[in-house]
């Protein structure tokens, strides 16, 4: 097994991403991720000493709008996409024991 394949802890990544994967999916994904990460490793050869990181190609700063509420979507229209709703609220599984 190559070094980078050992580094990827799929179970930990699943926890961080809140994503369940079947054993078959994990078996396939492990080597694929290792290969992609092996490929992006080439960035280590670039000299980035003193280079500023770029988050946006065309950065805009201090983009503010007035702090005023504006109508967007009616509650009813919004809730139409909710998997379950009742009394104008989204229904979720029980989160507090007791």
């Amino acid at each position, binding site marked *: 097994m190559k070094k980078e394949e050992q580094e990827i802890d799929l179970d930990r990544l699943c926890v961080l991403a809140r994503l369940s994967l079947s054993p078959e*999916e994990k078996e396939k994904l492990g080597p694929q991720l290792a290969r*992609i990460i092996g490929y992006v490793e080439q960035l280590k050869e670039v000299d980035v000493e003193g280079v500023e*990181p770029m988050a*946006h190609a065309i950065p805009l700063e201090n983009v503010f709008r007035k702090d005023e509420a504006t109508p967007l979507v009616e509650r009813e229209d919004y809730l139409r996409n909710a998997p379950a709703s009742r009394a104008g609220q989204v229904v*979720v599984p029980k989160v507090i024991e007791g």
Partner: protein
Amino acid sequence: MELNSKTAVELAKLLDSGKVSSEDITRACLDRVESVDPQVHAFLSVDREDALSQARASDARRTEGKSRGPLEGIPLALKDIVAVQGQPLTCASRMLENFVSPYDATAVERLKNAGAILFGRLNMDEFAMGSSTENSAFNRTSNPWDLDRVPGGSSGGSAAAVAASETILSLGSDTGGSIRQPAAFCGTVGLKPTYGRISRYGLVAFASSLDQIGPFTRCVEDAALFLDATCAHDEKDSTSLPDQETDFLKKMGEHADRKWKIGVPKEFFAEGIDPEVRSSVESAIRYYEEQGCTVEEVSLPHSSYAVPVYYILATAEASSNLARYDGIRYGHRAESADNGIDLYYQSRGEGFGEEVKRRIMLGTYVLSSGYYDAYYLRAQKVRTLIRSDFDEAFAKVDCLIGPATPTVAFRAGEKTDDPLSMYLSDVYTISANLAGLPAMSIPCGISSEGCPIGMQIISPVLKEAEMLAVAKQFEDGHDFKGLTAPDRLQGEGAV
């Protein structure tokens, strides 16, 4: 020629003359969808009655002398990634299979205000992640030039629908080449504007620092019309550029016949390029020289790092953006989960397809504690170097010209088991997204196997009018204007 095969500029004249109505044009497109889409599979759904009622409303406006401009009455189909109030929005994902948009995207609102007939939901790679439209949860779109080949991706449905004359124009989105690569594969014009030109409000987010909306068209002027309608500041998108100059159709005319200084990036003709693509683009460059333009070789020394930088930054942003699909407020919810945390795991595990999961996991990895500096931060720094390469090149030349893709459309299934080789089909398009530059693909040749070849023009920030003029100069000297796939589809019915 059938109405559905014409360009918007041609149709605008016919509409003005009163010889045809928007209803005639819209009906021609809808009929074409019915006859060929069972083979092409460009559309996920079409609301025929809604389209016809928009067309009748447009005809009524025109009769009353209240035409909204050159796009009035022109059918325009939409990638299934932008919100249209009351219409489905699936992103070709099981996750959003039943989602109905509660509002209009700003680009959609502006196209409606321009009088366009917005219809259909076009197939794509799930959440715009892919380069072949084979990652759709619902259907594989075929390339209208050769049904065994892919149309490219992620906006494969948008490209195929224009190439197959199922619509006059279409809207797509481009994060790493998702407009230009399918445009090249399907022989259409495809344009990604400067980052921030078109509002992303109502565009489902994949990688927010890279995503841009843009058009697929059958001629360069139609692309200018799309930009004229959609480019504007929007306070609902904090990355939207303020104080934009538009009026692209007029301005590109003012730049006609300029003797451009054209840069040819030597890295775009390196190993891996198909010889036919190379010779086609090289002869296009010679054409510019014959017109009195000057051509010089330039270097983008960091361009070979664009793909690795992209797959770190785009997946990192995606893993964050796609955290919203949690099965709670909208989207797929797992039925078997018995507590809130399991609901997240299972809804996401069931709702997302293979490539989306792969990218979420990769993005999670590069952002995770201990790896952030080595991958994410380093990639952001190399992004700066990629942009600096362009800045240096544009100090010497007006624009860059090269191939849009290393090969013509590949065969379906050819790359599905090898994600990395799929990623490399975007090798020439990704840098423009990382640097925020406008770029477009226009058809410049047909391969010996009958596949279109695309030439890419990359211009400095906000120089779309100049870029369009460069494209128009080539179009005027060749026979690719109004190009559509050879009509072997018609009359064969469903196969």
